[in-house]
């Protein structure tokens, strides 16, 4: 057992810290620091800076831009980005479709998509959830029917995050209506400029436009855009979701917001013992979470994930939400001024507090709701 990072890992951390705080534009990092909304340009600019340095997709296979880092180094990379308020590489590209294409795509698909995906020349959207297929994703109904060299896609996807920016969408579609549930699903890449694709915004409770419905009406998709084997899409989707080991819990970002909250609290932190206790308790829970994430990454070198990794998403989202709730309480009545402009007497953090709090209610729902996480723990770890 040893507490300190090895000399090499400590140097790596310093290198990451230096790069993120000096090479990614301050204006972009300021938006993240103020919990504001990043523009498409901000996200693209930032990812291209990372990609030019080989820091956008380090977890991919080396021939496609990966770095063969240990899980610990990936963890450090991920934490330091959050700490420096650098926008994370677009998850749909870097964590989702990229690894799937790299693992299961044809050589042509890899050459066509992977460099552009890493560099965010293609903005990917995710087409998994449907109105009647949420946590029970395998009950999805969007169909793809073979017609010559094409698939004809019909159906509706929903909760497509930032789909308004999407160039391409990776989808799960039913290619064998006779097969039961998980069997009969394929993984299909669809150009969002294809005729018959329509993106409709969904307004959320925070007032923002973050997610969309995506409708497919007789959309013609070349057969070459199917990834892997027909009717094996479920396996690839499981691979994609199981890929999220490092960075499952947003530790660094939550720590940063909590540290900011202490500044925003001002004198109240010293004067109000209840507030001080609440912050101290949150800090301790975050510390426990961060240490658990470290245990998991330090362990997973043998390829098998540490059982405690299932704790990360569950507790990580709970704490992310709890800190956002704290910030609303710090703002108090001023938190109602969410619609006020920069000329308001209410500071920006207080104006952003409630939209951020409302927005983050999503965190315990997406990516396998926390109820699904509890089910995973109960079944696979406790054997219940």
């Amino acid at each position, binding site marked *: *057992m040893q507490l300190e990072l090895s000399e090499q890992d400590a140097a790596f951390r310093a290198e990451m810290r230096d790069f993120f705080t000096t090479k990614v534009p301050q204006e972009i990092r300021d938006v993240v620091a103020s919990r504001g909304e990043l523009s498409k340009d901000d996200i693209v600019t930032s990812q291209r800076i990372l990609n030019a340095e080989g820091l956008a997709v380090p977890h991919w296979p080396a021939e496609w831009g990966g770095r063969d880092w240990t899980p610990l180094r990936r963890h450090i990379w991920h934490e330091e980005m959050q700490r420096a308020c650098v926008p994370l590489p677009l998850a749909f590209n870097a964590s989702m479709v990229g690894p799937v294409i790299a693992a299961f795509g044809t050589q042509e698909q890899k050459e066509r998509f992977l460099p552009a995906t890493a560099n965010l020349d293609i903005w990917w959207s995710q087409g998994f959830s449907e109105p009647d297929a949420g946590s029970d994703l395998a009950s999805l109904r969007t169909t793809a029917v073979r017609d010559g060299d094409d698939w004809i896609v019909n159906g509706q996807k929903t909760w497509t995050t930032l789909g308004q920016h999407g160039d391409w969408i990776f989808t799960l579609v039913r290619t064998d209506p006779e097969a039961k549930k998980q069997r009969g699903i394929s993984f299909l890449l669809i150009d969002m400029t294809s005729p018959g694709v329509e993106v409709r915004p969904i307004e959320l409770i925070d007032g923002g436009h973050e997610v969309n419905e995506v409708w497919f009406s007789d959309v013609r998709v070349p057969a070459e855009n199917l990834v892997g084997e027909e009717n094996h899409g479920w396996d690839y989707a499981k691979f994609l979701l199981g890929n999220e080991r490092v960075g499952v819990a947003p530790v660094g970002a939550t720590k940063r917001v909590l540290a900011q909250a202490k500044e925003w609290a001002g004198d109240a932190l010293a004067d109000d013992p209840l507030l001080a206790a609440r912050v101290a308790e949150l*800090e301790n829970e975050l*510390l426990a979470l961060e240490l*658990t994430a470290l245990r998991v990454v330090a362990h997973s070198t043998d390829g098998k994930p540490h059982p405690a990794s299932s704790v990360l998403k569950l*507790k990580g989202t709970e704490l992310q939400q709890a800190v956002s709730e704290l910030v609303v309480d710090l703002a108090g009545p001023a938190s109602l001024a969410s619609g006020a402009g920069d000329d308001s007497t209410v500071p920006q953090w207080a104006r952003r507090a409630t939209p951020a709090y409302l927005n983050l209610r999503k965190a315990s729902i997406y990516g396998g709701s926390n*109820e699904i996480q509890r089910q995973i723990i*109960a079944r696979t*770890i*406790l054997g*219940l």
Partner: protein
Amino acid sequence: MDFTHDDEQKALAEAVRGLVTRTYGSYEDRRRTVRDEPGYDEKLWTGLAEMGVLGLPFAEEDGGMGAGPIESALVAEELGRVIAPEPFLTSVVLAGGLVAATGTDSQRAEVLGAVSAGELVLAPAVAEPGRPMTAAASAVRATAAGEGWTLEGVKEPVPHGATAGRLVVTAALPDGGTGVFLVDGDADGVTRTGYSTHDGGRAAQVRLDGAAATLLGDGGDATEAVSAVVDQARVVACHQALGAMAVALESTTDYLKSRKQFGVPLATFQALTFRAADMYVSLELARSLATWASMVQAAEPGSTGDTEPADAARRAALGTSRAARHVGQEAIQLHGGIAMTAEYHVGNYVSHLTALDHLLGDGHQHLRALAADVGDHAEVDPLP
């Protein structure tokens, strides 16, 4: 950074597990042992001495094994798994630790050699009636008497205070500050009233009326030294609690699988399995904190970055306190009536967890200390 135990440490844990399981293979064995005096199994105590466990934390020149906090933690976790009533934590780690931290060369060699050999049980007389756990003594006052000292006052509860060969007493020095003293258990002026604690342990009221005492060390204020030893013991106590929590959870999941109601196993009911999943989350988060705290204790002074050993101990103890209550209370509830009986082990595990929680200061005390310092740092970073 490495959270894994080396082969020697694993072998130690296995050896201790083997030994304690021979004595407490079934819960009934433990129940029988704590019914009679001295409240623990003297054969097992001798066995632990022969294995080197009782001298584990002491320097080799003092008759010990020269191991560290990680090894003590491993032993405590194994003892916790069977809630062994043997006073490793109180006699070896706490009382022995006080002697190791404050005694002169000859005092250490004399006392710790006997402790390591299993010939002498020490009782830590630190807790004071009506006060939270503190390193600064006030309920017992020391007076210089010729070459030696006499003590006046009351200590309670003193673990194994009625039967221990020697008492290690913290007392207020005439010119301020705290001294640590050795008192023979059967010396004149020592009145010991022993009793059982709710978890089957032993404690006593110790009344000192001019009892002759030997000052450990040179007579300077030992408050800081006492404080550091109490912190070390806190971390070891956390590990003892981890062992007990792990078994409480294992027993609960076994019970959910085997117990039938309404014609089906209890594990059929998601209302119950989700609660077991939450117990696992609490346990793993506490394990992360306790493991980290033992690594901080084991690290070279000054090599732990922003983290002071005392701070790490508090953080681990707070997290463990929260987890122990959650896991313990749910273990009883998910079992139902059977866990209320003295005959079944789980309720007794909860009783022991409750004792451990309060022995050296509880979550409330730790949170208060952390809250007082919450403005001193921006973030809590676990790695140096």
